[in-house]
């Protein structure tokens, strides 16, 4: 299997990370060597193995649905790159 530039561009779009030609070529080399290494898993037959989704084999605890944090609006927007009082500001999305 080999990951070509077209695939890199597709993944970069899905990842919302812009890549130029030079970066895409470097990524293709790196990802191919990593996937070559990962292909080793195909040596194993796993048809009848149940996938492990969590090592902690406990069921999630239920708790009452209570409001724990109140009046933290200011804290929430405190770290935003751009805000307008109580709102996050982003580039225009509707013309």
């Amino acid at each position, binding site marked *: 299997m080999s*990951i070509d530039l077209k*695939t*890199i561009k597709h*993944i*970069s779009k*899905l*990842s*919302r*990370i*812009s*890549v130029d030609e030079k970066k895409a070529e470097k*990524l293709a080399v*790196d*990802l191919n*060597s*990593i*996937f070559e*290494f*990962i*292909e*080793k*898993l*195909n*040596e*194993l037959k*796993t048809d009848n*193995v*149940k*996938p*492990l*989704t*969590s*090592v*902690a084999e*406990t069921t*999630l*605890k239920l*708790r009452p649905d209570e409001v724990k944090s109140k009046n*933290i609006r200011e*804290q*929430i927007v*405190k*770290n*935003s*790159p*751009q805000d307008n009082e109580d709102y*996050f500001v*982003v*580039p*225009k*999305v509707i013309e």
Partner: protein
Amino acid sequence: MSDITKQSLTELVENIKDKKLSSTEVTKAFIDRSEKSKELNAYITEDFTSALNKAKKFDQKPNLDLKLPGVPIAVKDLFCTKDVKTTAGSKILNNFVPTYESTVTDNIWKEGSILLGKLNCDEFAMGSSNETSFFGNVQNPIDKDLVPGGSSGGSASAVAGQLTPITIGTDTGGSIRQPASFTGTVGLKPTYGSCSRYGIVAFASSLDQAGPMAQNVKDCALLQEVISSYDPKDSTSIDFKRNQYSKELTNNIKGKKIGIPKEYRVDGMPKEIEDLWQKGIQYVKDCGAETIDISLPHTSYALPTYYIVAPAEASSNLARYDGVKYGFRAKGENLIDMYEKTRSEGFGAEVQRRIMIGTYVLSSGYYDAYYLKAQKVRKLIKNDFDEAYKKVDAILTPSTPSSAFKIGEKTNDPVSMYLNDIFTVPVNLAGLPGISIPAGHDSRGYPLGLQIIGKAFDEQNILNIAYAMEEKINFKNKITDWWIK
């Protein structure tokens, strides 16, 4: 006392409790040494002025019943600290000041400890040499231009260099144990669910665990006792009876059965690692334990499994960095362009690489072939350990396949970098506790570590084995203070 920074945590606590030392004296000593140690680049953010104020305040009304009374400590910059910048070693969080505290650090402050500052680490804890940090390389106190390991490289460097008496790191695939091994320090990765993940910048949520790093096993046990707690704020935190690890610590390991897995004898492993392992086997026998040859047949599949599971979870966890709610934002022509440029300029190369791998293995048409396959192999790896633990109480292996390497030596080959974690990754995949202790030196005098892997929630047992071995090994770290002019 001029040699304050040479004291272990246990000694410092005793001296403060006996009023031989004040918190201010101790805090000042570690600040002074940290100031002289800028060349190590162990800190990302120093909080020295505030630390001194807190120490003075502690001394005015000292509560000596606490476990860490007035003891200063610097922590990995992956833990959110209220009102103190938390970067995860990334440009994208370069201006992030949390409005809340991680549970693990909160547990530390509640026992009387004082924050010294935030320690350097690989970006989002992705790396094995601390070279992916936006804030630059960290020097290993063992030798100039030597990596301290990673991702908790700043933490390991700061403990080995005596800039902090103890510290905490996080371990997703070896990020506590590998740097501990590279710097001649002790590092424990607890059982998954032992320490709360609340307030820790997430990398791979099914693998991430916080843990203590220290100069010796007893200090490590004491810190583990402080940080481990059941926390309703982390849905995978587990409610089990936690030991008083430092109080219950014993070097009596007579009759313990210790497994030696043959699959850890990997191709190309240097002879000095094999020799160290044999020495370790002799040490545990000298302590009255019995060693048993075991097999963990799927060991060689652990790294490929890890490099599917961890990036998949990372790609999902790091989707939140979009330049909208917090962190760095790049200028874009429209919203999508802003997202793409923010993430392209804000993340470093290794993080981008892992997000791309993760996105690919989760993408339509590839999920079954990669992600589901990896989850199945992960089950086989866990089954290996479950089988082994029917016969043994713990497992002894080397911590790493080599000693520390030079800065820049492995940065161009991601796979060779990943191979560093070959002995540590299986432990994370199975959710088990593992501890690395310094056990010897290579031909250049660089430290080498041995790893003891335990059953889930059996931290006390591996701490005891480590404690007994430590006494036999009598390891001395060769630190020359080369960076202090």
